[in-house]
């Protein structure tokens, strides 16, 4: 047998791609020729060496960066489900509220409203049955502030009051839904009031709400809020 043929058999053996007939051929050759046995041993050592090439962990921020860079929907998407429409409307509403607050503050420049008054502009007072289910204070860092999970048994929402040196984008994930709210909380600029984001479904089932805070497309903080369990 010429060299390329027995080499091919050795490579196929390494890759577990030999059929029975080929395996028998290779066994015959190995028995007959010590040089082929030596070559086969060397190829197996090479295989072990190459298979030991280490796997590196991808950068921790890779997934968040990709999610942050995604356009709204894939090209030529066939249809959009109800839940994602609702999320988009929530994000649009947040944008409208943000824009409204900017206009409000520009018009009232020099007549700084009290924080509570500002909050009232953006986030109406809770109804009597609405309660706070969880509150987190973000630690000092590129983005800080408070995020509350509120609900009234049938609806749930996030209220975010953020401070940051640059606009913050927030990716919200809960129960398989993902939404993103852009441009929140730059300190000392416009739009620093609380922002309310409606969540799909109820928040009283102990489900977690994962938040990823991004600045300039880079993840800067994470948080998880949890609705209380049903009694």
């Amino acid at each position, binding site marked *: 047998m010429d060299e390329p043929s027995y080499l091919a058999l050795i490579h196929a053996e390494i890759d577990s*791609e030999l059929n029975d007939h080929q395996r028998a051929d290779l066994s015959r050759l190995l028995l007959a020729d010590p040089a082929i046995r030596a070559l086969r041993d060397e190829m197996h050592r090479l295989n072990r060496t190459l298979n030991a090439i280490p796997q590196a962990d991808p950068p921790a921020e890779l997934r968040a960066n990709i999610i942050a860079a*995604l356009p709204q929907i894939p090209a030529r998407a066939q249809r959009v489900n109800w839940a994602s429409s609702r999320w988009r409307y929530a994000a649009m509403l947040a944008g409208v509220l943000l824009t409204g607050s900017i206009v409000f503050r520009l018009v009232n420049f020099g007549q700084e409203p009290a924080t509570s008054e500002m909050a009232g502009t953006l986030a109406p007072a809770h109804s009597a049955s609405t309660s706070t289910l969880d509150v987190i204070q973000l630690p000092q860092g590129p983005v800080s502030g408070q995020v509350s999970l509120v609900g009234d048994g049938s609806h749930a929402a996030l209220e975010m009051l953020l401070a940051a040196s640059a606009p913050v984008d927030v990716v919200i994930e809960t129960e398989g839904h993902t939404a993103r709210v852009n441009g929140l909380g730059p300190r000392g600029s416009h739009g620093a009031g609380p922002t309310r984001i409606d969540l799909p479904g109820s928040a009283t089932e102990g489900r977690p709400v994962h938040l990823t805070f991004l600045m300039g497309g880079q993840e800067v903080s994470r948080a998880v809020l949890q609705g209380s369990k049903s009694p």
Partner: protein
Amino acid sequence: MKEYDDATLVQRSLEGDRAAFSELIVRYQRPVYNAALRLLHDAEEAKDVAQTTFLNVFEHLADYDPNYKFYSWIYRIAVNESLNTLGKRRPLEELDGEEVDGAPGPDRQAESDQTRTVIEDALMKITPELRSVVVLRHVMHLSYEDMAQTLALPEKTVKSRLYSARQLLRTMLAQDGEI
């Protein structure tokens, strides 16, 4: 999220479910990043390639043919992106033999640094086309059939390239006493 197969996650992504696409990222970010890292020998470029790969996947999700394996499709995009990145490098940069910056995980410190460096240097000395098949086989552990599908090449060509690559690596590593 419940464990869905790739086809279901693709379909849900097409319907606007971003969590489904996020799950695809979780599932494939490691192999995609590692393929790029081994092809490029540069952690920063590998990260960029991985990100571009997933954005391209998202952008062209409607073009994916479910008759083919999803991972073959995504690996093909990753390999092509890596080869494009290599093509943009100046010729000297590819051969400068510098250490990968920032790539190693904690366990890599325990490995023989010399052996790893010799293998990585040897990989960078063969052509990108031959390196691609080595990475698909020995890093991604694909079969001949999947490699052929990933590279859009006949299986015979894939085998020929893999055998040639191994012969070259065998010679190089034997000279360095690594096998």
